[in-house]
């Protein structure tokens, strides 16, 4: 009984019964669990975030608009969201490769490699930033080889991307890994025996299975990167218009006791992130439906 409940819980409703309206009566405890969810989300997410609205609301529209659209602020949005997207894209590909290796192959030291993936989760971000800067500065282990080639990493926007790749990697690996483990290898073998090329097998058989997980990993890595402050400030160089991230501008505003201005920029960041995450979720939903339509 217990097992069947948890299995039901894991299945996404649209996956389980496409096109059929979900009736609430099947599982008991909806009112209680929904109540708890709303209460908990309000306490932990909505109430703290709503203070942003109240703080920004102390500004009139014009001041608010000037604060959030100053050229320096606009440049920082471009860097923050651009670098976060780029880093999440890199992690999408690299994370899949790492997850694939960990799931499909046996090799000595696999457990250790597996544990290494989580390190960026555990490391204080400031430590990560300082370590990366030490590596990529012109006198660092990597920097001293890259600089003669004309590649500057530390104190440039590229450094921001490097830091964001570092902190985002575990998100993709950890979301894709379990799905890949559950994917039936027989399906791929069947595809191959039916004459599908390797690329076809990957694109038509494997990818649809893991795409939702990949998108989730991508979204998580992206969201984490947008909000990242600790590691980036050390490696970015923080030059206005060039390598200044939005969270740093927020700190700058706070430093002037401009709480409302800081909240305004934070609010814009939040809304942008929300729209992007919503878009990714929609993409995932659309993909899941499309995949089902084809298979059924």
């Amino acid at each position, binding site marked *: 009984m217990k097992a069947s409940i948890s299995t039901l819980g894991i299945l996404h409703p649209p996956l389980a019964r496409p096109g059929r309206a979900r009736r609430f009566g099947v599982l008991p405890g909806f009112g209680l669990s929904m109540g708890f969810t709303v209460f908990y989300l309000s306490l932990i997410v909505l109430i703290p975030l709503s203070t942003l609205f109240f703080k920004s609301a102390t500004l009139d529209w014009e001041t608010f608009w000037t604060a959030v659209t*100053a*050229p*320096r602020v606009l*440049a920082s949005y471009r860097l923050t969201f651009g670098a976060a997207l780029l880093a999440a894209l890199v992690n999408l590909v690299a994370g899949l490769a790492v997850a694939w290796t960990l799931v499909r192959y046996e090799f000595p030291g696999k457990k250790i490699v597996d544990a290494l993936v989580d390190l960026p989760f555990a490391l204080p971000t400031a430590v990560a930033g*300082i370590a990366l*800067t*030490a590596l990529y*500065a*012109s*006198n*660092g282990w990597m920097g001293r080889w890259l600089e003669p080639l004309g590649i500057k990493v*530390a*104190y440039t926007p590229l450094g921001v991307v490097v830091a964001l790749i570092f902190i985002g990697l575990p998100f993709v690996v950890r979301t894709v890994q379990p799905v890949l483990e559950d994917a039936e290898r027989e399906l791929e073998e069947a595809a191959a025996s039916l004459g599908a090329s390797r690329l076809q097998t990957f694109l038509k058989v494997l990818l649809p299975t893991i795409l939702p997980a990949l998108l989730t990993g991508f979204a998580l890595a992206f969201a984490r990167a947008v909000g990242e402050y600790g590691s980036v*400030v*050390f490696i970015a*160089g*923080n*030059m*206005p*218009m060039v390598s200044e991230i939005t969270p*740093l501008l927020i*700190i*700058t*505003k*706070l*430093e*002037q*006791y*401009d709480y409302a*201005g800081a909240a305004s920029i934070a609010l814009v960041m939040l809304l942008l992130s929300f729209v992007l995450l919503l878009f990714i979720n929609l993409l995932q939903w659309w993909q899941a439906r499309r995949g089902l339509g084809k298979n059924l």
Partner: protein
Amino acid sequence: MAGLLGRTLGVAVLAMAAAVSPVAAQQKQTLLNVSYDPTRELYKDLDKAFAAEYKKKAGVDLTIRQSHGGSGAQARSVIDGLDADVVTLALAYDIDALHARGNLLPADWQKRLPQNSSPYTSTIVFLVRKGNPKGIKDWGDLIKPGVSVITPNPKTSGGARWNYLAAWAYALKQPGGSEAKAREFIAELFKHVPVLDSGARGATTTFVERGQGDVLLAWENEALLSLKELGPDKFDIVAPSLSILCEPPVAVVDKNVDKKGTRQAAQAYLEYLYTKDAQEIIARNYYRPRNPEVAAKYASAFPKVNLITIDDVFGGWQKAQKTHFEDGGTFDQLYQPGKR
């Protein structure tokens, strides 16, 4: 029997002491000193010495807790409710904020202790690589081609604001100097800055550990400390012809001490900073002492620099902050697109 007598006597003495000094009734007290970043080592020494003295004088076991961080961030914590008994910050502007935004102390706080409530001072000097390969002698050399300068972001670092104002004052005081000339000099100077760290310690790390830049604009106490800790064989200190007198002020946070009943200890603590003993400790930690006697004794430890004050040249912190560091101020104008 003897034990009992001793105990009775002891109680009697205690009761008398309690009657004489109201403080002695509460034998234990804790002070929280909220300070800025580079004073970590300084206050470790001062707290130890003062706690010993206060025990002798007032019979109170005093524990002094320290909190360090960026000056502005520390002030914000106190405004938001961190129960600091005293604040010892990098600039008067940040303590002004305690009055303006939290009404935690009166507006005239800086008049309550001698010498602008600053028991020690410092200034801004240059830290250069050993042998001074770029031949940097004065502010003017910083804008020579090929020289790269490390200084933190004045918007986020108190120390960086002192750097900025010192450079501005230098340009202003040159023959034919004017507001426009100063603006030009600063604009040129910041074109030579490749990295803007968010705090003074960060900038020191960038210069010292990462090997970035030819010269670091630094607090004199930080520069002397780096020299001592990293070995004099790696860096030299260059004193420019003119610099700014940095007065990191201290203040009792009235609202908090009245609530906690620690005013007496807090006041004694800050007054202690002006005593000869404390001034010695201050000098040994590379801050410039105020006491003339101690200053004379340690004169050789500090380079001779012609010092201007923020009140003389900039009309005080409130004005300087508004003109230079607020959004849209002279610093922001440097980085406006199309104007570089």
